[in-house]
């Protein structure tokens, strides 16, 4: 039985037995390559679930809407390793109880979706540890190197050009599982702390706020980068932050549910190289 069939059966059993009230998965989209998030509430509907190499979105953002998990019932969700890391972060930051999240885990390798054994986030600990030791994406690092080689002025110009395209649609925020604030700081308007204008300065403000708030929390799912309608390479900002968290604090975001948030904890042996 292929993974799609297997997971459809698993989803049907989970729903039938009452183990979960909802399955969040992928369905067919508006073109043959597109996949879209779908929500399955009964075993009769599992035939709509699709699982293949086009299922790249990190669906964990759908776990945090207010009220979804407050009845104590469980929800099943299709997740790649990046999504499993997100669940750990959400648990570490007290946004959900990982016991209520049943994971239908998979990874995509050589154009195929393959099942990952495990049902609860903590069962994936060995997998996540191996991802940590494998290090951050070398593809991203290659792209990032190009920026690192620039002078500070050139790099500033580069980001100025990129940010000047931003329209403050906030797709990057809305799609991100880590951006769960009920009211984002840029939407706080009594008083309006951050101007809403989408001019270059305002776009700098937004993008820097976003990047810093994701430092040590981003799981590199690439959701923001793909969502950005004006193609700002947000992945490079995130990567730079992840690299800093890993190199300086040995922090690999979402490694486990008891991981302490890197920017909210202090250790005696923290390096303080940046304090003059």
């Amino acid at each position, binding site marked *: 039985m292929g993974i799609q069939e297997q997971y459809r059966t698993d989803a049907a059993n989970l729903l039938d037995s009452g183990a979960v009230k909802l399955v969040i998965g992928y369905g067919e989209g508006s073109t043959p390559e597109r996949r879209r*998030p779908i929500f399955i509430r009964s075993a009769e509907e599992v035939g709509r679930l699709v699982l293949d190499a086009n299922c790249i979105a990190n669906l964990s953002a759908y776990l945090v809407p207010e009220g979804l998990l407050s009845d104590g019932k469980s929800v099943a969700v299709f997740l790649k390793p990046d999504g499993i890391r997100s669940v750990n972060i959400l648990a570490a930051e007290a946004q959900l109880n990982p016991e209520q999240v049943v994971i239908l885990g998979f990874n995509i390798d050589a154009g195929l979706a393959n099942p990952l054994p495990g049902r609860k986030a903590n069962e994936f600990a060995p997998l996540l540890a191996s991802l940590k030791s494998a290090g951050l994406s070398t593809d991203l690092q290659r792209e990032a190197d190009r920026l690192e080689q620039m002078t500070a002025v050139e790099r500033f110009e580069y980001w100025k050009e990129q940010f000047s395209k931003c329209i*403050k649609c906030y797709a990057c925020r809305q799609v991100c599982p880590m951006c769960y604030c009920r009211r984002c700081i840029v939407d706080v308007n009594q008083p309006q702390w951050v101007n809403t204008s989408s001019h270059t300065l305002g776009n700098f403000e937004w993008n820097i706020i976003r990047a810093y708030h994701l430092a040590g929390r981003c799981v590199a799912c690439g959701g923001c980068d793909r*969502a950005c309608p004006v193609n700002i390479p947000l992945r490079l900002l995130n990567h730079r932050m992840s690299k800093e968290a890993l190199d300086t604090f040995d922090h690999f975001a979402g490694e486990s549910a008891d991981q302490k948030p890197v920017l909210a904890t202090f250790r005696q042996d923290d390096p303080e190289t940046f304090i003059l």
Partner: protein
Amino acid sequence: MTRILLHSRVDDCLSAWRSAGFRVLAPSKRNDLTRFDEVHAASDMALDLVLPERTIKDHFFPQTEPLLNYRIKKQAIESDEMLPPQQKRIFFGVRPCDASGLEIDDALFGWDYKDRYWFSRRENSVIITIACTRADDFCMCTSVQLSPDSTKGSDVMLHPLKDGRGWRVVTLTDRGKELAETIASMLQEDASETAPAASVPVKFDLDKVTSWLADPSNFESHLWKEVSQRCIGCGSCTFLCPTCHCFDIQDEGDTYSGIRRKNWDSCSFAMFTMHTSGHNPRNTQSTRWRQRIMHKFNYYQGKFGVNSCSGCGRCTRQCPVDMGITETLQEITNLPR
């Protein structure tokens, strides 16, 4: 008299227009983004795109626009109006849906108050549209009573020639005729055949959609929740739409001085029309999505006799979760009668 413009003469046109004081904007790709930008040569243009990612709306109704600056003094408040630059512009290579979008929005911006910012730019701009010979999976102009060669909102229409050498030139308005005169020596008489317009399948039944929306009993239909379940509430569909026009007035500055601005707003945002009291009349994503559809295909229709959608398909093409107007209107079309 049938006149054509050869591709090879575009550079000459550009110089003629520039010396006549026009700024010429055309689809181009810069910094990984396709949009209308100033061009200086034919080689700057990306005319082979089905559509640029961003619309020409940006150049008439920018994402942020200063309206006035103000200074608050002990006894008085001083302010100076800030008006847009009076620059003559030519938009070359617009698509029929984007051109139509301008005319659709004229109704809103010219309704009870004539928006000077919009109309001073409209009056200073000439729209040269190229009929589409190619469409993609998301194009749906034919579903909203437009077509790949509709002339709505255009001053000049260029129909690609079958042999690919250039375009047949059709002037549509006085402004278009005047502009064609400035390049008369670059046009030539030629009756070559034009390429067929793109074939764009009709994706939903507009009459059925509008009558369903107009029926008040459907305001609370379960359909709204079903079609919007995966909506993440970003503003990408509204901000990329050639007809969405909502804005918010913001004062940017400190207690003593600042600038009043008109900034894009989006009905997808949780903050949209939220009251000072904290009450939000549309406090769920499904009610916000309903507002978007109702506004475009019911309220706008009722007020101005036209739908606020030109079928460009961007809302679906760019949606991070593969939603969009098309799917919802298809769902409505497929409801049992």
